[in-house]
């Protein structure tokens, strides 16, 4: 069940990127996609361990794998940077075009194609 839900979350992100025509909504889709990858990494470590990977807090049983968690810290920061740059670019595009709709933006006159 968990497996289906994680993959469902991933598909939701992809679907969001694909169908939405607003640039901002595409970035929302990208955020969801990124979260789904983080959830995948974290949950996979989770199901084998019984406590957080902090030695002072280990109660009984084994800990969860700390390595994917460290990797995901990096992935989250990277997604923050990409989101920030993407959003600011989208706003700048909106200010030049007056539209956030990708179809309208791409139909804006391109002097060499017509």
């Amino acid at each position, binding site marked *: 069940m968990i497996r289906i839900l994680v993959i469902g979350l991933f598909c939701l992100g992809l679907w969001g990127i694909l169908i939405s025509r607003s640039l901002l909504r595409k970035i929302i889709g990208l955020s969801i996609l990124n979260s789904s*990858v983080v959830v995948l990494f974290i949950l996979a470590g989770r199901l084998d361990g019984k406590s957080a990977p902090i030695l002072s807090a280990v109660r009984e049983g084994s800990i969860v794998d700390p390595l*994917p968690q460290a990797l995901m810290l990096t992935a989250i920061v990277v997604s923050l940077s990409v989101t920030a740059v993407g959003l600011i670019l989208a706003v700048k595009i909106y200010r030049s075009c007056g539209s956030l709709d990708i179809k309208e933006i791409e139909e804006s006159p391109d002097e060499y194609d017509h």
Partner: protein
Amino acid sequence: MNTTIDLPVILLLFSPLAAAIISICGKFIPSRYTEWPGFIVWIAGSITALAAAFPVIASGATLQYSLGGWAEPLGISLEITGLTWIATLTDIIIASSAWLCTRRSGQSTPLFYFFFFMALFSLQGVLCTRDIFNLFVWFEVLSLSSFVLISYDRSLISRIAAFRYLLISSMSILLFLIGVWILYQLFGELGLVQIGIKARALRTGGSPPSYSRAAGAAAGLITAGILTRAAIIPFHTWLPDAHSAAPYQVSALLSGFVIKAPMLALWRIFDAFSFPELLDLLIWIGGICALWGVLAAMVQRDAKKLLGYHSVSQMGYIIAAFGAGSRLGRTAALFYIIAHALFKSLLFLSVGRVTVGVGSRDVYAIRGGARRFPADTFFFIIAAASISGIPFFAGFTGKILVTESLYGHPVSYMLLAAGVGTAASFFKLARIFTGKPSPEEPSPGEHGSVQEEDTKVSVSAFIGMSIVAAGCIILGAFPGIVDRGIESLATGSTRMLKASFIDWYSLSHLKKASFSIGSGFLLSFLLVSGPGRSLSHIVRGLKTGLNGSLRLILLGFLVLIIFTALSY
């Protein structure tokens, strides 16, 4: 045969970073105190490192470096192989010439140099790292600095191109990360060497089919993620826009090296995986890529977009040669990577200077470039002769190597046809240098940023472009010597070199070259004739928007995952 020498690796990696830090200080102090020092620190550090590494590389060994003293599997290791060494040298040549052309142009600001050197730094990381998650981090640094560089000159088109690139590359890198997760879940390793050992054990040992399917899917996801960065069909749609919208110095760097570095990373990943079925598929992908790229390039009206589609096409040659898998194929791929890096950056620099000087990028409108830009015309001729495969230039040697490595394979005929198209489109592009400046051409200064100095080539730009042009000629003029060196670097051994058995100027090779150039010349007349132009207009109308390219990329991922999972 591994040696541990620390200094060259660290120097190679961190001299671009130091240059970036020095450049950004130009925001606080006058930038004339930071411009040259940054460049000199970078080039001196890199060249020293390469020189120091050379004895080890020449003896066929590699330099390794574990960061923080933590070895794999937990830590991260860097490595300089022969491949990295020669690729870095190419990178330095191209980047220094792009840097020299940037001086005195509108892009010459501390921030531009900062992102320029950050891109070089991440390229070095991509080339050196031996850890698959670390590769992801460097890819992200590379793409973030590319976004800024592409949209540096504030035009709407460049912003849209940067946004498309951002969305496509971020989406595909997340699929890449899922591949990394599969590998970690299966093998518990992130180092490429360890992954390779376990993957080989998986293939030979009788493991359950679900495991090998998962490993295959991981290979597919990772390959597709990297192919997106290398702009191979069907993942190429971001490239022509991004490379044509960027300032021309950036296009030279992007087309010259930024799309090659992922190829070299893929090379190391394939060494780890050893996946012959996927290599066979890559040959076909390469053939289609070469042919489609050149078809799209022939019909373009925008000079820089034409060059951008040519990058797609030439990446097809590289990946087809790489897919051949043999030692000759690898030599051909590496040779072509270097040759294409040199002549494509020279093309972007010379054509870019003309288009900026004239204030237009329309192939059909610009005329008389040779009178106003004599130096650029000279460099253009060298680069165009190289890319079209005229004997004694780099492209000729490269094309012989590629076709020899694919001897008898149907794809080699596709590559021959692509060669005809390449010649044709460059004859078409060369028209911007012929004739007299026409009266209807937009006058300089109309677009605001065009100054009178732009038409005169500055000394530093001339030196920069001469270095690259010399590289093109050396690669073409001494094929035997150069290829032996490249083959020994590519394969890491010096015995039984295949490249030394090729008869470079045999009759069949010369016949092929003259056939492709001759028919290309005829085809170019067809292209610029009335019907050809209207046909071109129709084909140009088939461009894929952002949503279309996302669909195409996801479809590519789907096909590749299913193929690799079932065939591993």
